């Protein structure tokens, strides 16, 4: 389930990035690459587990759904921290500069 959630998040963030490209004021390329990285890794994990152990490809349980939501939120949190630290719009500089 978390593979599906992350893949959807990767697709949505890529579409929003492309809509605003070539401008990347909000570093959406970073957000989409974070989700794509996790999607690719979990895809390999799921394929290998399916080939070795068999069973269901997608784990559809409440636990996996909650994990999916948490993973998407963590991706957003990581992106937000990177955005605030790098501050591409120089918001902090402008705020601090105007207060002087």
């Amino acid at each position: 389930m978390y593979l599906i959630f992350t893949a959807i998040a990767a697709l949505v963030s890529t579409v929003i990035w492309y809509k605003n490209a070539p401008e990347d004021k909000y570093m959406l390329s970073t957000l989409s690459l974070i989700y794509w990285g996790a999607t690719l890794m979990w895809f390999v994990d799921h394929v290998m587990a399916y080939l070795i152990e068999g069973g269901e490809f997608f784990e559809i349980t409440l636990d996996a759904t909650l994990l999916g939501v948490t993973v998407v939120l963590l991706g957003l949190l990581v992106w937000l921290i990177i955005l605030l630290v790098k501050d591409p719009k120089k918001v902090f500089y402008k705020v601090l500069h105007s207060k002087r």
Partner: protein
Amino acid sequence: MACFTVPLAEAIIVTVVKKVVEKKERDSQVKCTKQSELVSANETGLSWSQKLSWLTRLLWGGVVLLALEHIWHGEVVPWMPFLTAMNNPADIAPMLHEIATIGTSMAVFVTLIWIVMVLVADHKVKYISKNVKVEN
């Protein structure tokens, strides 16, 4: 169990390589500016530091989210020895096997996708610069 350690190791190596490449590119840019040899972006294409930043973001993003999944499943803990499989000697061999098979496959797959991304981007840059030259 700990499959994300292979992409983690790759992410650390690629980040270091990216920093070195960035420094080299900055140095060569300074030389070019001194000699008044400014080359347009269309002629130079995408820089290697830019291409490597795609790979670092893919790897670090994947590693962070996979680490959460491992913490969620109780396979990773924030105290020594960090990997719960290390507590039981019987679990160490399957863990190493998983790292060698799934972990390596993850790292290889992400790198292959990145290589495709770089090839497509380079092809696009060449195509655009060719069209610009024809128009001029």
